[in-house]
């Protein structure tokens, strides 16, 4: 991530951001953006492996999966979906405001985003705690009385893997957001050139997008 954004150089004049290998800033920004997308594509394929496993196991154990879904905390899952969607908006809005030169609003919305992200993780922690209390833990320790079937174990193993990996990405996203706040506050990211903000935003949206799929897979019964 961080390696791809321009270095923290002292001057704020845009031309000094230009790396020697690029002809002009527009081209450089295009390159950074393309690079970020390629990186995001790579990230998505990391999750894709787990999605494929989910699809395969759901085919194999459809009844168990349905039963396990009924034991999920739909309320928290749905609340978290709303939280992330709104946070995606606030990031986008923060960038939008900066594009229009409104640094203060940008900072405010970045801060809101971070609060929402933290809220998401807090909900997630509550949910995990609840699972643990019922003997639903990842791996060999699994001891749920209500859902002893093998398919349910697979379901929860996948659940912990996928939401856990997602939560790790959330934590990473929060760190990036924190860094962006300092960049904007110190006027390193300017209305004229703020590629790092765009990239951080892209990352955040990606993490949100993954959750948009996790929600129906792990909460919605149907």
């Amino acid at each position: 991530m961080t390696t791809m954004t321009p270095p923290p150089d002292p001057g704020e004049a845009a031309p000094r951001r230009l790396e020697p290998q690029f002809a002009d800033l527009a081209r450089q920004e295009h390159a950074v953006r393309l690079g970020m997308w390629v990186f995001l594509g790579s990230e998505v394929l990391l999750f894709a492996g787990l999605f494929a496993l989910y699809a395969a196991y759901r085919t194999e154990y459809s009844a168990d999966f349905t039963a396990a879904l009924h034991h999920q905390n739909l309320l928290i899952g749905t609340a978290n979906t709303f939280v992330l969607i709104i946070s995606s908006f606030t990031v986008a809005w923060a960038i939008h405001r900066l594009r229009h030169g409104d640094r203060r609003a940008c900072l405010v919305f970045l801060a809101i985003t971070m609060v929402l992200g933290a809220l998401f993780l807090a909900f997630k922690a509550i949910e995990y705690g609840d699972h643990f209390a019922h003997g639903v833990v990842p791996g060999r320790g699994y001891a749920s009385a209500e859902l002893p079937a093998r398919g349910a174990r697979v379901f929860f193993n996948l659940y912990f893997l996928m939401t856990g990996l997602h939560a790790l990405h959330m934590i990473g996203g929060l760190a990036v957001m924190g860094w962006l706040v300092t960049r904007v506050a110190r006027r390193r990211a300017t209305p004229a050139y703020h590629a790092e903000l765009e990239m951080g935003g892209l990352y955040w949206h990606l993490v949100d997008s993954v959750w948009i799929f996790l929600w129906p897979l792990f909460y919605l019964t149907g």
Partner: protein
Amino acid sequence: MTTEPKTAATGGVHYVVALAVLLALTATSFALSRVAAGGASHWLALAIAAIKVMVVGYVFMHLREATFATRLVALVVLLFIAILCAGIVADVALR
């Protein structure tokens, strides 16, 4: 390869509309899961998720301003996810 954005920069309205659409779709998806429309409802939920992700990508992630190459990346990635899932599920479902 042109570096100029093809579309004008995304305006404030776009974001607000996108947010509204996303919230509405989430609510719809939730409601649908409550009324339990049978076996198809699961596919419906996934379809709604796909639409949501497209909205996020198109507006929030600025795909509407992006170059062809960038959009191509997004498409290729989706294609490969489909290939991976299809190949594996086909084995499990058919053996």
